[in-house]
Structure formats: C-alpha cells, structure tokens
C-alpha cells in the first residue's frame, strides 16, 4: 500500500479530478482492511484497521487476487473496472456511497492507481 499512496499522489490529473474529495473510506484487500484518508484528492494516510468501529464512510472489498489482476497493465475482463468487478460478483460495496457516486471517475482511477501507466504497458 506504500506504493499505492505514492502512485496516487504522483498523478496530478487524478488529484485534480478528486479535488473536492476529503473523507475516509475502507478498502478491503483480502483479509486486510485499510483505511484510506483522502484530503482534497490526495491520499493523506493509509493505515490498517485496528478497531471494529473504524468503518470509513463506505467500504470497497475484494479478494487479494482480484485486486492483483485489477492492477495488471492489461487486466482481464470483469477485473478491469470497479463496477465490472461488482457486476461479476468479484467485489462488494457498502455504506454511504453518495461521495463515491459524486466522484465516480476519480474513485475508479484511485483504486487503479497501482496499475502501471500506459507507457509502461507491455
């Protein structure tokens, strides 16, 4: 997840798109729940959840292997996009998702931030 934070904060286009977003959400990667604190589109903090009451505004969860495929340079169909993962039953979404919907393109790109940029694709 260190790599995620650096990749997201290094993408100025992503930060611009998310400039209205300041909140905390829960990102479930396999058995690990991470709390992602966003401030004006930047990833301010990434930390492992330690308490049950730490829920974030909403949660996005999928198995670790699903996220690994999602982050490949050219993901397989159904793994390439958050809503494709949801419709294929590969991911789940819970909580107050209005901010997610208000900034859907931003959140999709944020979750895909670890994916190598197009120039690096093979």
């Amino acid at each position, binding site marked *: 997840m260190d790599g995620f934070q650096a990749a997201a904060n290094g993408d100025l286009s992503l930060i611009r798109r998310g400039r209205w977003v300041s909140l905390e959400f829960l990102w479930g990667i396999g058995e690990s729940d991470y709390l992602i604190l966003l401030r004006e589109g930047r990833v301010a903090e990434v930390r492992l959840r330690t308490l049950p009451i730490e829920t974030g505004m909403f949660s996005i969860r999928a198995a670790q292997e699903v996220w690994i495929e999602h982050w490949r340079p*050219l993901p397989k169909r159904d793994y*390439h996009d958050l*809503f494709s993962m949801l419709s294929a039953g590969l991911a789940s979404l819970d909580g107050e998702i209005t901010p997610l919907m208000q900034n859907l393109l931003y959140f*999709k790109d944020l979750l895909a931030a670890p994916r190598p940029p197009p120039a690096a694709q093979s």
Partner: protein
Amino acid sequence: MSKTAGPDYEAITGRYFNLQIAGADHRIYVEEAGQGIPLVCLHTAGADARQFRHILCDEELTANYRVIAFDAPWHGKSNPPPGWQDDDYQLTTVGYKDLVQAFCAALDLDRPVLMGCSMGGRIVLHLALSTPDDYRAVIALEGADRLQPYYDTSWLNRPDVHGGMVSAGFVSGQIAPQSPAEYRFETLWGYMQSGPGIFQGDLHFYWQDGDFDDRSGDIDTARCPVYLLSGEYDNSCTPERAQATAERIKGSKLTVMTGLGHFPMSENPALFRQHLLPLLQEIAG
C-alpha cells in the same frame, strides 16, 4: 491576406428536419456521408450520433454505403418535443420502434441496413422481428434480447450527483482498457453532455422494457439477416448474453470482438472497422 485552399472539411453533411412521431413534432438532427445502400446508425443510451463519426468518414465504407446517423429526440442536437418540461423522459420499446420506422419513412429509404449499438442494438432486433421485410439486414452491436441491470439508475438523475459525470463514470468500465485514451475520453465526453435524466430514461427501455427473449426465436433471418457483434470487455451486454441471444435467433451470426468494449465504433474505430467492413461486404453481396 493570402488565399488558402479553405478548411479540410470532413465528408459528413449535417441537417435538421421536422419528424412527426405519434402526432408530435420533433426537430431531428441527422448526419450522412457516402452513397449506395442506406446504412442507418443508432447510437447508445444517453449519447448521440457523434459516436459514428469514424464510420461516416470511412471512405472504404462510404464508397458503397450511404451512412446515415441521427440524434434521437432528447439527444445531441435533436430537441425534445414541445412541452417536454412537463414530463420525465422514458424510452419504451414501442416508442423507439416508432421513431426508427418514422425516420426511415421520412427519408424514403429503400430497405436500409440498420445498425445500432447498445439500446440501438436491442431495437434493431425488435424491428427484425416486427418488420423484417423493411430491412436488408440488422447489425446489433452490443445488443441482446435479454439483459440484467447491474446498478440503480436513480443515481443518474438527482440533484446531489452530477448526472453527466456519474453517467460517464458508470460507462467508463464498459470501455476496453486497451482502447486509445483519446477515444475513451471522447466517448465519455458524449455522456458528460447528455441531458438531465436522458441516460436514465433510455435505460428504461434497455433494462426494463426491452427484454423479449421469449419471442426473439421467431425472428426469420431468411427475411432479415441478423448480425451480432459483442465486445470482450462489455460488462453490460456481455459476450455470454450475446451468445445466448444468437442461440435463440436461428441463423444469426455472432462475432465476439477481442479487445473492444461496449462502444466499438467510438472507443476504438480502427479495430472495429476490421470487424465491420467484411460484414458490410457480405451484406452488399
């Protein structure tokens, strides 16, 4: 000032005309290019005919086809009918069929080829069933006789969510990841410009009203050939749903397009034409 050769215009000509549909006036915007067999192109839900601009400018294609693409009422540069402000827009199977038939009649087209994408791909299948002799063939891009909603469309039209941005956000995942960024974002731009509630209203037909898998098997492909083209990365009209449709419509021909998504003509025109051109040559005979 020195005289120049003038702008390098594209081959597309755009015009407006009044179309009566169910007794109501509709100011319709239509573009066309080429000559030969009429090829009427129907855009996706929440979008407009700009999606077909590459087809309209494909000289190899327009050498034998008169390509015609129009904005459906409420979409693009076609107005909603007078009094629109008093109603919510909602597309139905009957209304969409009436629109396409009225359009083809107004232009006095002789057995055109119908090609639609997404909701357009669904309605061409309905028309192949109801009026097969009116069309030389139908091409359903990302069209099926049965679909399954995968999100709540009320998110598309509410005051606290930007309708254009959330529409683009929803459909972005239906574009293949390898499609060129330029065309990915041009496709999304069309969705960002859609009128309030229009994508949602179109999805009423696409997801609620348009299923007819109980009758699609009655389509007579000897009278109206049916071609289905399905993009690998389409998570809405998936290749599996297109395959199931093809199995019900005896004699139909299915092509699964590797590396394409739900918007083949606009997200990756160079790859899409590799599938479309041979098919149009087959139809032309």
